[in-house]
């Protein structure tokens, strides 16, 4: 069977709606994990960019992506890409807002200081490089006295 453009689009929207196992309110597209869908002969390959290579949720994400495509009658292959490298900037603006409002999780900006997602203070004190998950650091906001988790940004190696 040949994959048409409309097949690809239908599968893409189903795969894009797959929820992240650790942030059940957010999709893998919003988190910037979904990179691309590629037609390979008579099947579709889904390219995903893991937030962290050792992420334990990768198997679960792969299963969920395959199941979402299967519901539409498509078997897809999943590939985790080593490049591009995932960075917090890949998280969509609306998802960044949900992370801040619902999860008290901040994204470190490319320049300037990270602000407390609760009270807006700029004086977060770092308490640990790594928090409950390897992709977040732990800070303390001395203003509103809450622990704040910040999605870690990483140096992107030169291409």
């Amino acid at each position: 069977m040949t994959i048409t453009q409309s097949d690809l689009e239908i599968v893409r929207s189903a795969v894009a709606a797959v929820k992240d196992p650790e942030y059940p309110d957010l999709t893998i597209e919003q988190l910037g994990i979904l990179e691309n869908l590629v037609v390979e002969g008579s099947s579709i390959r889904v390219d995903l960019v893991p937030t962290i290579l050792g992420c334990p949720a990768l198997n679960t994400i792969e299963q969920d992506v395959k199941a979402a495509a299967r519901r539409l009658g498509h078997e897809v292959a999943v590939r985790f890409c080593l490049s591009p490298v995932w960075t917090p900037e890949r998280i969509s603006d609306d998802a960044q807002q949900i992370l801040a409002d619902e999860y008290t999780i901040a994204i470190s900006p490319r320049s300037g200081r990270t602000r407390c997602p609760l009270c807006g203070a700029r004086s977060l004190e770092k308490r640990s490089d790594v928090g409950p998950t390897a992709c977040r650091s732990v800070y303390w906001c001395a203003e509103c006295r809450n622990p704040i988790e910040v999605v870690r940004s990483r140096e992107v190696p030169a291409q």
Partner: protein
Amino acid sequence: MRTWNSMEEFEEFLDAGGVVEPNDAMPETYRNAVFRFIELHANSEYMGGLTERDWIPKAPGMHRKLTALAKTQDEIGHAHLLYMVAADLQIKTREEMMVDLLEGRTHFHNVFHYRVHSWTDQIAVAYLVDAAALASQQAVFKNCSYGPYKRILRRVIAEEGFHMRNGEEMMLLMARGTKTQHDMMQESINRWWLPAVQLFGPDSRPGDELLKWHIKSERNEILRDRYVQKFVPQLLNGGFTIPDPGLRQDPDDGKWKISEIDWEPLKKTMRNGGPDSARRIADARTAWQNADWVRRALDSSAELIA
């Protein structure tokens, strides 16, 4: 900073769904109750993390090792966040909480006072115990009156949901496995069913201050019953039996009823007198001592930078 003129006024604020923040002038009795509750939760995450850690080298296969590693990180990370919020209540420092835990002066959840004998025990913990812990955390989160704790719970629940899914997946694998695997899983269910059901504790007392002050939002017996209604059919569907000879299904409403629970052994367990309590606490103490040089190195490098 908000202040309240009387306990009645404070309780009206809580009943109306008010959320207390650290800078508020909260009544000391409330501060103490919130502190004790969060300290127990933090201790339990910490002890749970150490149990999980024991399974990193023993987990079968790379993927299971990765999961065990990530779960260990989750639990210790949750403990860290909770200890930060508990210490901020200015009743004990984090160091004091750690020392109290390691000296056996404070407590942690019943489920971490038993020995994990086998890999299927570890699956039973992930499937039955994590689900019970998650159900009780969800009930606290729903209506929790202490802001910083509620915010941590939001993330803890999201992460524990992932653990539970993992436990369920491993349990189903065993359920569909060989007879030996199925039997092993059954043995582990026999060991862990009662501790999981007991995690919710005895029936809530009338006038329980945790409920009155909306630190908890649901009575223990309601949570326990909901858990039983969900897990009895799941286990039966997996071809397992429930280790409770008195278990019966009400012919009228179809609800599952478990035998009366004898709470006396649980009371002893919760006072650190459970079957594996002494070894667990000693193990935690060793882990703490072994990491002493890391803490000293961090402290002295912080001093150098300052």
